[in-house]
């Protein structure tokens, strides 16, 4: 096998897999039963919220207990816009933008605080958000909430509502995930990680911790707003309960369970958020709290890195058998003119070095 083919193969395979996944996603709603579609739709809603949370918390390390507030805000803006007859694209833009602007304002203040102090400000968002939503009843419908329907399938489409909703959610979710994925892979991903690890070091690399935090927080809020838009697309109703603090905690748990600092993990986190209540309802609706706690702990106990680390964990188990020797000397890539370490003792030349078997990237 030539080296060229070897490097091309995984890429081609990956492209093919991506294409296959895309086709499956497009075809799936036409085949699946309504309930499956509705479930997938809800997964999309929460995956986007978790994705945002992941950016600010998983990647940038800023504890955020207020993500649900932005979901709720996006949902309210969407409801308001829809009920006032705005164009749907405008509604979407407004949901993202208003959540983003509020997020930016909060972040401009909150990012001055480090560590847990930021957690405090973010806790306040849903805690204050609920009574505020009740207070502003002209916009929010008060504690009775507000309904808005805009995702009924148009007749020309020939689709059922759940299918139509699926496509709306798919477009937004896919867009959000692709954007986030590119963002965290390059310059900004490294900046987020650097701020998370050590702000002083990040700063000495030319990364302003403050701005980076504000950026991450704002992105998270925008994704929160987008998720709120999707929430309304799926649920068609929102009320102060949507933004209750408990859900924020659940989002946080979903993020860690999916995999903190992982894009794919956000999707898994969204799935976890939606599936576990269904599962625990199926087990016994009277025991949902116990079973949810037990499932959460069990998953983390087995996979402390989250669901996304499952393949890695499996690989590690299967690899145990093959120990490797130190890589220091003759691993590939060492340039010949500078040996990595001295070899002071001539009469004990090391022999039998094996090549490292770590493959790059996932």
């Amino acid at each position, binding site marked *: 096998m030539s080296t060229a083919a070897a490097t091309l193969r995984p890429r081609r395979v990956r492209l093919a897999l991506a294409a296959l996944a895309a086709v499956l996603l497009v075809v799936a709603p036409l085949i699946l039963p309504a309930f499956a579609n509705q479930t997938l739709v809800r997964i999309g809603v929460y995956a986007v919220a978790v994705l945002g949370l992941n950016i600010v918390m998983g990647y940038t390390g800023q504890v955020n207990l207020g993500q649900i507030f932005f979901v709720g805000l996006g949902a309210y803006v969407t409801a308001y816009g829809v009920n006032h007859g705005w164009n749907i694209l405008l509604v979407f833009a407004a949901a993202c933008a208003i959540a983003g602007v509020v997020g930016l304002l909060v972040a401009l203040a909150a990012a001055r605080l480090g560590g847990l102090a930021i957690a405090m400000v973010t806790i306040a968002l849903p805690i204050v958000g609920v009574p505020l939503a009740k207070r502003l009843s002209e916009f929010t419908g008060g504690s009775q909430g507000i309904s808005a329907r805009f995702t009924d399938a148009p007749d020309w489409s020939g689709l059922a509502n759940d299918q139509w909703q699926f496509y709306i959610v798919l477009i937004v979710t896919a867009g959000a995930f692709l*954007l*986030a994925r*590119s*963002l965290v892979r*390059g*310059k*900004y991903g*490294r*900046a987020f*990680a*650097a701020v998370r*690890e*050590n702000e*002083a*070091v*990040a*700063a*000495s*690399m*030319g*990364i*302003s*911790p403050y701005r980076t935090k504000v*950026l991450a927080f704002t*992105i998270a809020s925008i994704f929160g707003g987008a998720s709120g838009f999707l929430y309304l697309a799926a649920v068609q109703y929102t009320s102060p309960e949507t933004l209750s603090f408990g859900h924020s905690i659940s989002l946080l748990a979903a993020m860690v369970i999916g995999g903190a600092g992982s894009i794919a993990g956000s999707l898994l986190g969204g799935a976890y958020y939606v599936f576990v209540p269904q599962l625990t309802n199926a087990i016994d609706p009277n025991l949902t709290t116990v079973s949810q706690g037990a499932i959460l702990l069990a998953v983390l106990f087995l996979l402390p890195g989250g669901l996304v680390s499952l393949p890695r964990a499996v690989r590690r188990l299967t690899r145990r058998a093959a120990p490797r020797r130190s*890589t*220091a000397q003759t*691993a*590939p*890539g*060492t*340039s010949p003119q*500078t*040996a*990595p*370490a*001295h070899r*002071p003792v001539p009469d004990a030349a090391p022999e039998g070095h094996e090549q*490292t078997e*770590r493959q*790059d*990237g996932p």
Partner: protein
Amino acid sequence: MAASLSLKDVNLHFGGVKVLQDVSFDVEPGVILGLVGPNGAGKTSLFNCISGHYKPSSGSISVDGTEVSGSAPSRLARLGLARTFQHPALQLNATVLQNVLLGAHTRLPGGPMSWALRLPRTVRAEREVRAEALELLGRGGLGWAAELPADELSHGLHKGIELWRALLSRPALLLLDEPAAGLSHGEVEQLIATVRRLRSEQDITIIIVEHHMGLISALTDQVVVLDHGRKLMSGTAADAQSDPRVIEAYIGKDAADDAA
């Protein structure tokens, strides 16, 4: 372009502790300056003042004639300053390559939107710095480690990674805090060669804090000795090593013999 640095009456206090007192000296572009002194003399703190991590209580620091004291570290980095840390500060769970790439932050164009949309220029820039980082690592004999998580490398190698990370930013002024700590004699020789080559290939000003007097003698054009936060003397490495005050305060009688 190598940068010049000028310190004037820099003072730094933490509560009652006077860490730096009236420190003044100038560094011409392209010079390698050694900063030595006993433990706790304030060398790292002085680095922190220059790089913006500490704000001097008073005094002025200017880079290329621009007053920078009190500026944020990130701003100084954008002005071309890079540094390493006395205690290696790497992202241990990221790969060595990712760690080094962090150094390229200021060189990469485009805002978050451009990167999220993968605009061609960002893709191109990323490919370029990646190649450059790999080349640097290869040159440092760390090519094999590029895709390993940093925590799988031994302590001594971390110092090297920090150096490559700082260099990837193509600095005009480079601050190295004890780069030879934890290196064996042979490894120090290599480091000396690396820094020499760096200077010959790149227009750069370097300040080195080091307790390894051999390295200081071999590399520096000029030496500043700090003691208890004050400048004790400045001159060449040879001047310093023969100055009785320096021997008294820093090198110690027997140690001076050993180092010779």
